[in-house]
């Protein structure tokens, strides 16, 4: 990819770190959901203490590497940078964080081991960012933490769902290994309710953290949705990231208006699809994708069609066209659905006392505790699908909530 996604050279990192004003009680740190002390880690880069910088990041956010790659920094730390008001470009906080984190992993850095051993054992269901952060914090405080996930690899959407140009599965794997080395146990390929019953988990653990994320992509419920060549964005991105052969042809239609639709469309362009069009049922203004993601997609040559609501797919066995209201048939070889994920209502509604709202788990925002006091939750299953950094913040808060409740 282009230089926009290239790492900083050590000298460039130093120059950029020197630009930072070192604000007091810095707005960038307040804007970060995990409250990374941004000026502190940046000035450590400036002083040549890059290992100290990485530790300062990890202290606040154990997924500092993936966040440095996938965070929408324009609306978070870099959006809050005071440089905007000096009419200068904000400090490249994301890239500096990446610089420190890559240094940390390249020299084989490790998390500190817990100073004490607590007598508690916590199960974290789902191996995505929320559970990783929760388990790492539990372990750091001295509790035992065991992660369960049905997929073969841990990391959740960091491994399977984040656009490849932002974060490769191997990089997500580095974070998983860091947390594993700190003492968190991983049981992957295990489905709750099938391989282990929830009741058994409940019996064997002092608390359970739900970091289960959301379900599969929602169907549109329109004629022709069963045709070949129609797939979900999550499956498409997972296949692409894990280098399974993806044959999408020349003309790709992506349906949806969020950041996942943009990721899928850009991935399709990277697979050399000549003609990639995003269909969105509402207007440009209503699109939920971040402005910088939208701009990026346009630079990648993705086309957009607004106010286009699909009503049917046409084709024999394989999709050949999308029919929308008020517009001519759109010919295509592949359709990618990115219209939001379903809720995992079946599993959640089996938990006594758990309260759901619109299929999402209701929690105390400070502690992550659910209506069933032994269950805590965080990440997409609570917030409906937000950023990695939101999941990390929620997972860490829940870990502290769990320990406070157990104590």
């Amino acid at each position, binding site marked *: 990819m282009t230089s926009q996604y290239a790492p900083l050279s050590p000298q460039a990192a130093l120059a950029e770190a020197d630009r930072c004003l070192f*604000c007091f*009680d810095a707005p960038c740190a*307040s804007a970060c959901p995990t409250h990374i002390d941004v000026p502190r880690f940046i000035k450590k880069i400036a002083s040549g203490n890059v290992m100290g910088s990485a530790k300062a990041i990890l202290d606040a956010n154990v997924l500092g590497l993936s966040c440095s790659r996938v965070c*929408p920094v324009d*609306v978070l730390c870099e959006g809050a940078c005071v440089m905007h*008001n000096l009419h200068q470009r904000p400090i490249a906080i994301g890239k500096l964080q990446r610089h420190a984190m890559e240094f940390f992993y390249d020299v084989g850095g490790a998390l500190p081991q817990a100073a004490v051993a607590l007598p508690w054992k916590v199960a974290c269901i789902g191996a995505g960012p929320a559970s990783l952060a929760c388990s790492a914090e539990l372990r750091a405080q001295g509790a035992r933490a065991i992660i369960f996930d049905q997929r073969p690899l841990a990391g959740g959407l960091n491994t399977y769902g984040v656009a490849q140009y932002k974060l490769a599965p191997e990089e997500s794997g580095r974070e998983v290994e860091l947390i594993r080395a700190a003492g968190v146990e991983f049981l992957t390929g295990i489905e709750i309710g099938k391989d282990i019953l929830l009741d058994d988990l409940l019996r064997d653990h002092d608390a359970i953290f739900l970091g289960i994320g959301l379900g599969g992509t929602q169907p549109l419920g329109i004629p022709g949705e069963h045709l070949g060549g129609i797939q979900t964005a999550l499956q498409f991105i997972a296949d692409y990231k894990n280098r399974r052969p993806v044959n999408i042809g020349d003309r790709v239609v992506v349906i949806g208006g969020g950041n996942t639709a943009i990721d899928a469309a850009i991935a399709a362009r990277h697979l050399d699809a000549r003609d990639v069009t995003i269909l969105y049922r509402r207007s440009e203004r209503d699109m939920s994708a971040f402005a910088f993601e939208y701009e990026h997609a346009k630079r990648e040559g993705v086309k957009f069609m607004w106010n286009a609501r699909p009503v049917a797919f046409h084709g024999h066995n394989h999709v050949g066209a999308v029919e929308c209201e008020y517009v001519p048939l759109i010919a295509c070889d592949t359709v990618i659905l990115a219209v939001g994920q379903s809720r995992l209502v079946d599993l959640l509604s089996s938990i006594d006392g758990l309260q759901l709202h619109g299929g999402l788990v209701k929690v105390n925002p400070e502690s992550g505790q659910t209506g069933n006091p032994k269950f805590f939750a965080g990440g997409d299953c609570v917030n409906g699908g937000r950023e990695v950094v939101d999941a990390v913040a929620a997972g860490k808060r829940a870990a502290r909530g769990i320990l406070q409740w157990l104590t």
Partner: protein
Amino acid sequence: MADLTTSFAGIHSPNPFWLASGPPTNCGEQIMRAFDAGWGGAVWKTIGEPIVNVSSRYSSVDWNGNRMMGLNNIELISDRPIETNLREIYEVKKRYPNHAVIASLMVESTREAWHSMVKRAEDAGADGLELNFGCPHGMSERGMGSAVGQVPEYTRMITEWVKEAARTPVLVKLTPNISDIRVTARAATQGGADGLSAINTINSITGVDLDTLIPRPNVNGHSAHGGYCGPAVKPIALHMVQQIASDPQSQLPISAIGGISGWREAAEFILMGAGCLQACTAPMHYGYRIVEDMVDGLASWMDSKGFPTLDDFRGRSLPRVTDWQHLDLNYKIVARINPAKCIGCQLCYTACWDGAHQCIHVSGSDRSAIVSTPTATAVSHAVPPSRIPRVDEGECVGCNLCWLVCPVENCIDMVRVDNGLNSESWAERSSRIPA
């Protein structure tokens, strides 16, 4: 357009910018290129019995991403034969008769040696002589350089010897490595010097390599103290020039040296009484070409100020330097923050709170609040009013620190407040109060 022609102790040059004695004036070929680039004069790399140098020779202090804020050297005087240097002086003067060529000299401390050297330099056509009594490293171990400049009696004696033989103006270059530079300035004056050059480099060790633990510059595992120069030393040099210029006992023209990198420093030194200016680190860093803006910038500033010649502002700021005891104790200023310009960095707050007088206040931190990624696709960069600090003017002592640390131009103003008191200095107050 302002007239920059310079007459210094009887030496004429088209502008006040001379290259100081050092690597940029090592040979005639260099100096002729420098004159072509616009330098008004050059003080030749110190001539004496040729020495042998070491490598490496320089080390520096970088600061916040900028290279060579300060430079340190352990290079000695010219390593070329005296005859070669003198022949090239003759060549340069023949081709550049209107530029100033000054021979910097250093020989063993005997009357005969100095008489001979002076005569040879003048015979080669030098417009003037600069006696190197300042070099702080190497040569001082052999009884020359700052070994002379640190003893007022030696300074006076050798200046006298030189004056016995000299027909051209004699400048004495002073070392700053002494407790009161006015003492050696007076000694040179008493010895008959026609002008003073100040300052030479300051004793320094720039740093230690934290991998090898060897101080810099590294000469096969060892280092030695060197002489420090460059932008970092300007305030020290400016003070010393002011001290000499204000001293009634050494009213000689001063050729200012020390961190002069551009026209601004040049103007400052002239305002402090300098007759001409010498630069070395800046051309070592960026090349001779920098003189173009030195000349252009100084002339533009003079035009904007209405100073037709250098004499029209020379020493203008000297009367504004006084002893602390004469400063007005009742002059009161306070900091005012312009909320429209404030970017909310709160550097003024932390500086005032930890480094000054705890009179700038902010609203509490919101760092512990639960924050989520905004759903808005773009964010506003407006400064939240809660981030803009407030000054308690009743407590503000008017120290300037907040104004110095503020990264935004004209965001903090230091404003005079009327306290109804008449001007009164410490000297006046203490003479009024009986002991």
